[in-house]
């Protein structure tokens, strides 16, 4: 990837760089002032909304991983991924709340919740593998636009399945996780946030370890870098890509269950909004980079949390505007994302 200033005329290079520095600095000052003023004037609220932000960020991170895993290995923006998350949420409602009749927090229900987590992950993993097998695999060598449009179509198909399954109206239900919270030094901590974050972190650690430390992970990274060379190493490229889709799907399934249990509502169109935000997280962190997706997810969760909940600030109406303004600014000055590297490779 060429650096942004490489083709600019010499004289304007320094001016451009200076302008970048100054505007980034000013933006930084504004953000620090905004957060600092809120922190000093109402510290309890600052941490309360921070915790909400982290909890949402955990969900974004889980979904963002699915985008980034798939992009990393076959360079496809899998638009259907947000809707896969939705199916995970709808599935866990039907399975846990309706089929197993688990409402309210009893010991039995917590056991069933753990069981559903595993089944929802397997459910979404399977769907994702089937989607790749049926729709994307045969388009692997086609021009990039073909799989992209297929992914958009797949998104509509999944949404329609969700619509048929769940109905057009959102369903509200009693969750197993308590929707209460406790107070610590004035900071309000919802139990759901605690559970979501403490379930997400091990999942993230397992995933990153799997990709970086295991034989299967090594096959994934090799396949991502050069498919033919991977074949020459004896790697089954198709199987490796299927495995990658399974991993991304499993994360979406986990996120679906956690969303359903955090908010006590599921709807067929959940995937659009959350998918978009999660995709943004992946891009913000540097698409294709696992740590970047996690960082991006938590960052966007926090930005939204602070923006929506702090007394001094633009407020909830500006939530999306804030997120995307930050994304656009970052893309202009750091097109590869926060952790993405513009790699220079010798040929």
């Amino acid at each position, binding site marked *: 990837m060429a650096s942004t200033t490489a083709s600019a005329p010499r004289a304007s290079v320094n001016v451009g760089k200076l302008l970048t520095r100054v505007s980034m600095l000013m933006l930084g000052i504004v953000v620090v002032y905004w957060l600092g003023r809120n922190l000093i004037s109402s510290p309890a609220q600052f941490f309360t909304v921070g915790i909400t932000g982290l909890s949402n960020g955990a969900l974004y991170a889980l979904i963002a991983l699915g985008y980034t895993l798939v992009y990393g290995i076959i360079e496809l923006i899998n638009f259907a991924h947000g809707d896969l998350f939705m199916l995970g949420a709808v599935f866990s409602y039907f399975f846990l709340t309706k089929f197993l009749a688990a409402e309210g927090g009893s010991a039995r229900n917590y056991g069933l919740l753990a069981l559903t987590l595993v089944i929802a992950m397997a459910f979404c993993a399977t769907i994702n593998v089937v989607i790749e097998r049926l729709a994307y695999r045969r388009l692997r060598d086609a021009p990039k636009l073909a799989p992209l449009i297929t992914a958009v179509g797949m998104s509509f198909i999944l949404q329609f399945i969700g619509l048929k399954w769940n109905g057009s109206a959102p369903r509200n239900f009693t969750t197993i996780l308590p929707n209460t919270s406790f107070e610590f030094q004035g900071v309000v901590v919802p139990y759901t946030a605690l559970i979501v974050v403490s379930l997400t972190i091990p999942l993230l650690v397992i995933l990153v370890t799997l990709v970086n430390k295991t034989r299967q992970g090594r096959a994934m990274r090799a396949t991502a*870098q*050069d498919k*033919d060379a991977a074949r*020459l*190493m004896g790697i089954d490229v198709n199987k490796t890509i299927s495995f990658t889709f399974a991993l991304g799907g499993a994360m979406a399934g986990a996120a679906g269950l956690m969303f359903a249990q955090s908010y006590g509502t599921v709807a067929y169109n959940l995937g659009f909004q959350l998918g978009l935000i999660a995709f943004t997280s992946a891009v913000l962190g540097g698409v294709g980079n696992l740590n970047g997706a996690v960082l991006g997810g938590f960052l966007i969760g926090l930005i939204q949390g602070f923006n929506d909940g702090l007394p001094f600030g633009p407020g909830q109406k500006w939530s999306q505007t804030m997120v995307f303004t930050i994304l656009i600014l970052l893309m202009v000055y750091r097109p590869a994302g926060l952790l993405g590297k513009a790699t220079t490779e*010798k040929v």
Partner: protein
Amino acid sequence: MSTERKNSPVMLDVKDITVAYGAITAVKGLTLSVREGEIVTLIGSNGAGKSTTLRTISGLLHPKNGSIEFKGEVISGKPGHEIVKLGICQSPEGRRIFPRMTVDENLDLGAFLRKDTAGIKESREQVLDLFPRLRERITQRAGTMSGGEQQMLAVARAMMGQPKLLILDEPSMGLAPVLVDLIFETIQKIREQGTTILLVEQNALAALRIADYAYVLESGHLKLEGNAKQLSTDPAIAKAYLGG
């Protein structure tokens, strides 16, 4: 033309293959064989179909017609990773190392299908002895090395699979003359250690010098074949292919 050659059993038998990229036929009715313990070289000008042939043997491409047998088993039509399992490893054209991984990780991937931890360690030492330069760079990202070092890594990586047949596509491409000599010496060493080699080279003269048998390709066809030493002294060949 002389056809005298080693009397060992045929290892790789390519029978009348035709390979096409869409509408463009790159290899037409090519027949060639490699016997156990041989160094066989495939020479010819750019676009003669040498790399296409090697990619087809390794299962990255599939022939439209004809068949390929390895030790009596038909391998044409098998996916690439299964062919590696049978003992054919390739150092491909353009090196194709994994640029964002370290030298060590690249070597590990070369031994992807092997389970014998002790044997892998031994092979690793062996290739690092052959290419001491790689030992110095063992933790470096492969994409940041020089072209010559990357080429050594590509050959070393293919050797990590402990192949019965080692396929080398242009191993001297873009290397400094000193390194070219080193690579050709190394190829002979590898053969002495009992590996059969199929070599494609632009540097035809050097290839003929170390090879036992040679095939000359011209626009996808087999032009002629014969004992490598004799071909290298044939004035007609020298004129047409060796720039003599």
